[in-house]
């Protein structure tokens, strides 16, 4: 469970405070997948990073119980001079996975990303789509209670789209998805309820369609 407890978050832009959240209290229940909608720059990614415990609110507290994934996005913390294999090993190590478990993860990602010989080549030669494949596969190889997904589903060619949405639906049975996307179709596929983020407030819509309607009329 992730609880936002009277959270205020702002950025200082030229002495003005740009509010992302203003005194928000909300409880993200486990088991209910949430789609976050909003304009560009409304602070969707920032909200996602705060839920992941990476950024901290200016006022208030965020309580996180259970394991939360890193924000799965196209750009990841991969070192360009290392190969995908070495980067994955690194991530395994920082999550305390060694030996057979690490080997299982590497095999899974290699099969999932399906980038052939590139898997053992330094990542600077990768296209952004290939990086996204590796990052998405890597996040699917771990078991998190919460997945934070930032615009990564629905990239790549049709076969990968199919594969990723299959993997995603399988994960859905045990984990909760919190997802930022401008692609309404992917949200419909995955999410149960919708949040529309604007002017430092979050509007929660129990019916996702309603949130999408508001989003499409406003943006």
């Amino acid at each position, binding site marked *: 469970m992730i609880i936002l407890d009277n959270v205020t978050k702002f950025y200082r832009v030229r002495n003005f405070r740009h509010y992302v959240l203003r005194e928000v209290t909300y409880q993200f229940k486990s*088991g209910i997948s949430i789609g976050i909608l909003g304009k560009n720059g409304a602070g969707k990614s920032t909200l996602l990073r705060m839920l992941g415990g990476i*950024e901290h609110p200016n006022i208030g507290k965020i309580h996180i119980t259970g394991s939360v994934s890193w924000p799965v996005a196209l750009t990841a913390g991969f070192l360009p*001079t290392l190969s995908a294999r070495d980067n994955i090993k*690194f991530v395994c190590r920082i999550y305390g996975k060694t030996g057979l478990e690490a080997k299982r993860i590497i095999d899974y990602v290699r099969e999932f990303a399906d980038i052939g010989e590139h898997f053992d080549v330094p990542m600077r030669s990768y296209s952004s789509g290939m990086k996204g494949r590796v990052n998405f596969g890597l996040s699917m190889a771990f078991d998190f209670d919460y997945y934070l997904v930032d615009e990564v589903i629905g990239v790549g060619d049709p076969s990968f789209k199919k594969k990723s949405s299959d993997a995603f639906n399988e994960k859905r049975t045990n984990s909760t998805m919190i997802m930022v996307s401008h692609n309404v179709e992917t949200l419909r596929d995955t999410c149960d309820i919708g949040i529309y983020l604007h002017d430092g407030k979050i509007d929660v819509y129990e019916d996702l369609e309603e949130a999408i309607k508001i989003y499409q009329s406003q943006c």
Partner: protein
Amino acid sequence: MTKLITDHDVSISNSNNEITLHVELGNDSKHTIVAYYLLHGNAVIEKIFSSALECSFIIRRNQSYRVKVFYKDECGNNQAVFSKTIKPELICTSIDEIKNNITIGFDKNKIICDTSKCNNLFYRIKSYEFILDDYNDKIESNHSIIKYNIKKSGDYKVIVAYEDYNGVIQFVEFKLHAIYEEISSHLIDSKSLENISEKSLRLIFYILYAFIFREFQRKYDSGYFRYFSIFVGPAVRLGLLVFIFTLMGRHTVVGLSIPLFILTGLLPYSFFSSAGNCLTIVSGNKALLNYRQIKIIDVILSNVIMELLVSCVVFCSGVLVCKYFGLNVIIYNPLSLILSCIVLFVLTFGLGMVLSVIGFYFAEFSYAIQVLFRALFYLSGVFFSIENIPIQYQRYLLWNPLLQIIEFIRFSFVSFDLPRELSYTYLIKCTLTIFLLGLSMYFVNRNKFMINDRAR
């Protein structure tokens, strides 16, 4: 030469839902079976790699089957032969029997549906449907175990759809009363929350290990020459300085032979100046902060530890080389040596933290700081000893803690007493000040490292 296997040698038969295949080979035959493929038309349904003469497939569908047998003949060429086509008559299992074999359970806000016991009683699972009042959720999946998170209490209806042997879709229906337990925020005591936010020591160890390994790969793993270069850089600098000193006609400085004298100055300096790398550490590792457990301090610490390891290896091998050429190397004061190394480590770590914050806010300063490090090379006694300096200027140079550390390291290699000007008290005070300054600067700013550049 033995004759090739023909379809007369391959006999196929079926009983219940098993297809058995038998290959007849002559006594003197030298063929070896490689694989059996189960086919429907030309589509491969299942592959078995085996060299046995018999093999059986479990089938779950009423359709025509044939088997392709791959084998190698005595010359090693790949050959294949098809069996006759058969169409087994499978009798569909009754819905009631399947219902008895599916277990539906309930555990911690989850409905668990397990169909693994009746895997062979039908062709495949199509979907699971969970219905509460007028709300329904359909999960298309062919997995045999599924866990479904419920959001409300109530009488759930679970419908499992499967395809039977004939390809007809059948539905099995279950009823289940499930209770949703609200986990309210009040039930979570603050203590358990703290435990989660605290990193266990074990995790810190894992992270440091991962980082040191990664830094090594990044810096040195692009060919053997890079490993070699760990030694080449210091060796060239050391060689040049020794050469110049020898040209000047010096053979010992404060009782130390020239190579050892330079070595004890150069390596502490190069280790110390590695703190300069921390200027770009925030911008360079920002993407890594996406992993929640990684903090910038882990990166700084692992950088310093790695530099320490490299410096120690180079220093020890330098000392061994000196010893090999017959120079007198005796550690007279090991405690002083160890203490100086610890102080140097803490000082470098503290400075690294200071510089990481400075580099984050004032990226343009990094050039000035590089110049400062260069100046330190001339001021820190890398190629002179404090004893050589006129007495009225010594007090100014002694402000420099690095000079004091280098002198302490040097004087642990000679038998006579330390110069009175050096002071452990000053050194430790100075180091602790820088370390605590670095620590506080880091802790004040640590949450800002992740903030977008646009909102700095």
